[in-house]
């Protein structure tokens, strides 16, 4: 709300990809947020015009180009995409303020209807082959590489009963797979460079890049 306070006309942009799947920033949520913002602004005694548009994908410049005819008619843009989409719009439209409507949290999977949980932190040095397909970087609160901490009780993490202990899962799975030797082997201190330890990361596919 504070972000859009100074403006009379904004563009609220959704994205048809991941944020649609997790019901956070698709066409439907754009409609809901626009109505909510409308009411809130009216209640505060001001008025605002909110234009709505949902792009196929906000993280690709080709799709963001679609906003060109709309952008001059608004004072600011609010993006309901993940942080990648917000930044792509900011990169394309240099003279327009862009604000995030979401707090992008993690790369996760659907546990069940309406429940998502973190599965991958993009560490760039995948351990899943050693850990029975369960990631201790994304799913252990302490990112332990060799075994559980003292807070593992009854298969739960100490941060809460609704969080599984990744190492309890890894142990059980390796046992079931007959791969206990993978647990016994000491995993050395991790090289965090591919995981962002040496700054923003980039992937260049020579065969695809122009």
């Amino acid at each position: 709300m504070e972000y859009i306070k100074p403006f009379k006309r904004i563009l609220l942009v959704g994205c048809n990809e991941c944020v649609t799947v997790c019901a956070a920033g698709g066409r439907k949520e754009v409609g809901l947020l626009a109505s909510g913002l409308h009411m809130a602004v009216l209640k505060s005694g001001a008025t605002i015009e909110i234009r709505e548009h949902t792009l196929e994908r906000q993280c690709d410049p080709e799709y963001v180009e679609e906003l060109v005819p709309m952008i001059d008619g608004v004072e600011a843009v609010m993006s309901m995409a993940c942080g990648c989409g917000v930044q792509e719009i900011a990169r394309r439209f240099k003279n327009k303020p862009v604000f995030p409507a979401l707090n992008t949290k993690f790369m996760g999977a659907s546990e069940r209807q309406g429940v998502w949980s973190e599965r991958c932190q993009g560490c760039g040095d995948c351990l899943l082959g050693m850990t029975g397909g369960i990631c201790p970087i994304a799913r252990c609160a302490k990112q332990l590489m060799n075994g559980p901490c003292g807070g593992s009780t009854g298969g739960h993490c100490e941060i809460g009963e609704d969080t599984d202990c990744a190492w309890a899962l890894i142990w059980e799975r390796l046992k079931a797979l007959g791969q206990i030797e993978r647990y016994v082997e000491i995993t050395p201190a991790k090289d965090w460079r591919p995981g962002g330890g040496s700054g923003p990361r980039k992937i260049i596919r020579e065969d695809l890049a122009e």
Partner: protein
Amino acid sequence: MSFQKRLQAKEFVVLAEMHTPKGVNISRLVNDARRIKGRVDAIVVPDMDNGIMRMNALAGGVLMQQQGVEAIIHLYCRDRNRMALQGDILAAHVLGIHNLLVVRGEEMSQGDHSEAKAVDDVDECGLLGAIGTLQKGKDMAGFDLDGAPTFFSGASLAPCADEAALEREVAFAAKKVAAGARWLLTPPVYDVARFAAFYERVKGLGVPVVPTVFLLKSLAIAQYIANSEPGANISDELIRRIRKSSDREQEGIHIAGETVAALKPMVQGVLVQTLGWEHKLPAILDVAGL
């Protein structure tokens, strides 16, 4: 004789735990150390691993050494990356501390600075490996050191609530020994018979195992631990004993002393945790006949 030499000579060691202050008033810490001097072989000084910001263990350990008491300082991975850890380890050696205990840090959100960012650059095995590497005259990146430190390092074990956790913990303890732990500290023992069964599983790891004995200061604390830590094994009988006692404070001291005495024939040493009641240590050791 030093803590290391006593353990290696298979003599029984008595350890006490003393926390550094949250602040700079060290008078209690120093007084407690002076009071217990001569009755314990070394004092374990925790760092901020329980999640409470306080003066660091390195300074606490130096204070112990200044009182003529050998120190064992905690080292853990939550708050320091491999650069800071190695720097502290080198500093510890130079300041006269030769015993390190690698422990697990309480999860950041459970501490008193719950908004802080955890580091967790390396884990316990990584840290034990780093200590070993430094002792060989190299740092973790493979660069030569100008003077290598020497340490006697231990690791801690976690409480286990069930058989699956126990099996996993024993396998993990073996990894820590392989990574360089030369002794192991167990969680508090409230049931000596149950501990004996646990001890059977870990004594074959080839390093001395030192159990912890925790002073139950009140009935409420005993009940809290019994309810919140399924792996602690506080029996109903023990709770009843404290409840029925006319002097519960004294009862706690007796329970701790009796536990130490009962463990003595089985193990190589014991750590007495008194959590703020360090002035009760002499009484506990009296009951234990030490």
